[in-house]
């Protein structure tokens, strides 16, 4: 699985595909203060990205890939 849910936290791994966005959305709809860990993430499909952007999210770890981190930081409103 490229996406893993543990209690209040979601872990993204490798390339997170488009199909996962639905799962992610469903999960987020149920959580009040979700956290995300991108440390093992190399890419995530735009559908996942926009679901995250529509949520108030705490990021616990950014990706190793620096350019991806820059993108995500600009998208998720953190700098």
């Amino acid at each position, binding site marked *: 699985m490229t996406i893993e849910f543990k209690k209040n936290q979601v872990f993204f791994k490798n390339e997170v595909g488009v199909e996962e966005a639905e799962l992610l959305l469903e999960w987020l709809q149920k959580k009040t203060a979700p956290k995300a860990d991108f440390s093992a993430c190399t890419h995530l*499909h735009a559908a996942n990205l926009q679901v995250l952007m529509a949520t108030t999210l705490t990021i616990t770890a950014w990706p190793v890939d620096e350019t991806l981190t820059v993108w995500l930081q600009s998208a998720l409103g953190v700098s």
Partner: protein
Amino acid sequence: MAKTILIVDDSATMLMSVKSNLEMNGFKVETASDGVQALNKLKSGTKPDLIITDINMPNMGGLELIQNVRALPGFRFVPILTLTTESQAAKRDEGKKLGATGWLVKPIDGADLIKVIKQVVPGA
């Protein structure tokens, strides 16, 4: 993990050419000689990361295939490239309207093909 690509073309020559090129570049390749065969493959468990399909084929052509693929559960989002010739610009657009991601222009240059695949298949 090697990405799987399904090539659909009624020409065995074209299949052979694209297949050998892709396999040399580390892809897993499935082939089908028309739309019907391709759909059957998808229905029976083949889960490609990309579908490359010719337009003009007997039984079921590429455009019809695209529509059918998009209607299959689990294949709403799979990238699909049409195989067209230079003169088929209208078919490319039609293909895109029906759900294709993009197109390739025959004759396909091997390096171009890999470049395009890397562009539409994340992780390829």
